[in-house]
């Protein structure tokens, strides 16, 4: 296995040329290839939640002294597939008191942005679908749309508990969005670019030829940034210890109480897609993207490095979930506004000082 980025690029060029050679206008061929690329990304991102759900259940099982799914397929690896099939074929129930239209659209609004967000993620050398100049901002902006899906789910169910869950989830997501964006600002200042790929590539260097020049290894600023980013990402994805939006002991299941079948699956898909997205972003921002360590370059292709590191971060998400209790709403908010936000400002100031010092020396 080598780098598949150039290979894919080659493939798309060949495909476009082939289509153009068979009488398809250039514009059409371009759109066709775009569609193929988008299709590939949607398919692979849809597969990710399946893997993550399986991983979650296995990790939870091992942490709780049990085995997790074992029945469907060897070691239960087909369990998620079976669950998916079950969910698709379930009856679609819309409660009588629900706002029909909002109820139906809500899962789509929650889920669709998750896929769009993967467009500028640099999965490896030459594996960035759209290398946007403002990709960091783009991801933050688009992932914010999902919050509306949560609110719609809360409103559209016509259920008090759902509405409370939706309100809580949205309030939490909007609040944590702010320190999350601010935690990335030091990186933007440091590398002078907003492109995820650009930031990842800029980190592919070594200190003294050994320690990778990843942002996480920059003393103080790197660690503060990463910790704030990680905490906020957990909160953004509504997972324990920040899962007050779906707190099952208080709100039954929060905003998705009334959703079943494929609509529930879409909410679920969105959650895991965002977990993966946040991990991928953390890798690109703080862990040098596809940059390898220890082994000489090229032995293991960059995309394997990237996915490996991403799954390490994903594991941290799972680990948090199965270890921590849930915070209370007001504690959650004060933690965000009185702790994370001031520290992210401090970190920006520190980074500014660092950059000034670097410029002067």
């Amino acid at each position, binding site marked *: 296995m080598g780098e598949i980025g150039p290979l894919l690029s080659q493939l798309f060029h060949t495909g476009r040329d082939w289509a153009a050679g068979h009488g398809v206008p250039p*514009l059409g061929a371009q*759109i066709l290839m775009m569609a193929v690329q988008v299709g590939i990304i949607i398919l692979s991102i849809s597969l990710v939640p399946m893997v993550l759900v399986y991983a979650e259940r296995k990790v939870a099982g091992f942490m709780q002294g049990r085995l997790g799914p074992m029945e469907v397929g060897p070691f239960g690896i087909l369990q998620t597939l079976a669950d998916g099939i079950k969910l698709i074929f379930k009856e679609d129930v819309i409660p009588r*008191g629900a*706002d029909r*239209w*909002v109820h139906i659209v809500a899962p789509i609004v929650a889920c669709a942005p998750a896929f769009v967000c993967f467009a500028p993620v640099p999965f490896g050398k030459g594996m960035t679908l759209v290398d*946007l*100049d*403002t990709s960091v*901002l*783009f991801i*933050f*902006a*688009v992932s*914010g*749309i999902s*919050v*509306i899906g949560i*609110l*719609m789910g*809360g*409103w559209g169910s*016509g259920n008090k508990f759902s*509405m409370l869950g*939706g*309100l809580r989830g*949205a*309030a939490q997501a*909007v609040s944590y*969005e702010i320190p999350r964006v601010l935690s990335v600002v030091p990186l933007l200042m440091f590398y002078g670019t*907003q492109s995820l790929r650009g930031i990842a590539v800029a980190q592919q260097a070594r200190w003294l030829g050994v320690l990778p020049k990843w942002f996480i290894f920059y003393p103080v600023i790197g660690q503060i940034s990463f910790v704030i980013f990680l905490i906020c990402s957990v909160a953004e994805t509504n997972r324990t210890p920040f899962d007050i939006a779906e707190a099952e002991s208080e709100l039954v299941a929060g905003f998705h109480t009334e959703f079943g079948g494929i609509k529930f699956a879409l909410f679920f898909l969105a959650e895991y897609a965002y977990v993966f997205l946040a991990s991928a972003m953390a890798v690109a921002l703080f862990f040098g993207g596809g940059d390898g360590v220890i082994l000489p370059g090229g032995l293991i292709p960059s995309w394997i490095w990237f996915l490996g590191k991403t799954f390490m971060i994903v594991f941290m998400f799972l680990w948090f979930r199965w270890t921590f209790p849930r915070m209370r709403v007001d504690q959650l908010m004060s933690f965000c506004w009185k702790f994370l936000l001031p520290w992210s400002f401090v970190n920006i100031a520190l980074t500014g000082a660092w950059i000034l010092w670097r410029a002067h020396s």
Partner: protein
Amino acid sequence: MINLPSIIFYTFSVLAIGMAIVVVTSRNVFHSAMALTGTLGVVAGFFALLGADFLAASQVLIYVGGIMIIMLFVVMLSQQPFDALQRQTNTQWLYGILFAAAVAASLIRSFRDVYRGVAAVATDTVPTSAPIGRLLLGDMLVPFEAVSLVLLAALVGAVVFGQDRKAAK
């Protein structure tokens, strides 16, 4: 001239106008708010179409992901679900339409004069965030900070008005 950008532009325009009409005609406040969200999202699409990537992203981040969510919040908190499907418009809708039409006409007139001969669609997408940053923290620093001061004043005012009288004592 039928090319890809113009097709997208007209699709977006139809969407934006259609949803804007839903905003003022829908009886369900929540539906109105949703339609407004859509309108603002399409505006971001226009920005993207013009090559203003930073503006497009900011539009989505601030309007769709921020302001609209706060508005939905207000709608959800202030209304009992589904018992208030009353009309959004009052009896003066006719004057409203006339006034809107007058504003639209004057805008179209002035824009036609100003932008005559200017291409509607930027052909090359140059990254805009760096120039915008330089502008905001360079030539435009004073207005930029003045605007933030206004926002701060609004924030303080909101806190003062929103404060519980009893709690203040």
